[in-house]
């Protein structure tokens, strides 16, 4: 069965710091990869997705992620975080014929 791991449970940064959240998955076939964000008390919203083409994908709010197939990774990055980026971030994997599998989430706290 496929699984998704996220390297950090809780990340604390100051505003303007750079962010990188790690995500690894365990599935050898073709996958679609996602990052979702959950702001406090809200539902999950799509940040960005990868399913083919350029492995560097850009999402909303200045986020980007890089798919490295050889490392089974899909790390999320942002060059300069803001207080409003405080949220829970979920990496997810979907392979054809299966459901979405979510990672355990990484809580990001940005200090003003």
């Amino acid at each position: 069965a496929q699984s998704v791991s996220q390297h950090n449970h809780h990340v604390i940064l100051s505003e303007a710091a750079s962010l990188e959240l790690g995500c690894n998955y365990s599935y050898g076939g073709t996958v679609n990869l996602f990052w979702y964000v959950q702001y406090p008390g809200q539902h999950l919203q799509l940040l960005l997705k990868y399913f083919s083409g350029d492995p560097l994908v850009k999402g909303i709010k200045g986020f980007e992620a890089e798919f490295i197939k050889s490392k089974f990774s899909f790390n999320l990055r942002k060059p300069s975080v803001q207080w409003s980026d405080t949220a829970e971030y979920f990496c997810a994997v979907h392979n054809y014929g299966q459901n979405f599998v979510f990672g355990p989430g990484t809580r990001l706290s940005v200090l003003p």
Partner: protein
Amino acid sequence: DTAVSQTPKYLVTQMGNDKSIKCEQNLGHDTMYWYKQDSKKFLKIMFSYNNKELIINETVPNRFSPKSPDKAHLNLHINSLELGDSAVYFCASRETATSIEAFFGQGTRLTVV
């Protein structure tokens, strides 16, 4: 218009009761899901329905039963509620042919006392 809507948003009930959570999507998607998010924010899939057919049923207690009257609705019925059922339940939908991502509802926070 809300794409995926769940009702109620909050539900507080006593142990042993039976309750339902409703989900409706107006996106014309053919697959709908129920996820449970526990207190540690871990998301676990419970069910998915494709064209009114249950295609995956993870190892959830049979007290939980999904009901899909039509393609736009996937309701979650829970019998004999237990304290451990307290969580946030998210409905989601997806079009398998054309859309890769899933769209989520706003969640239902269930508290069993």
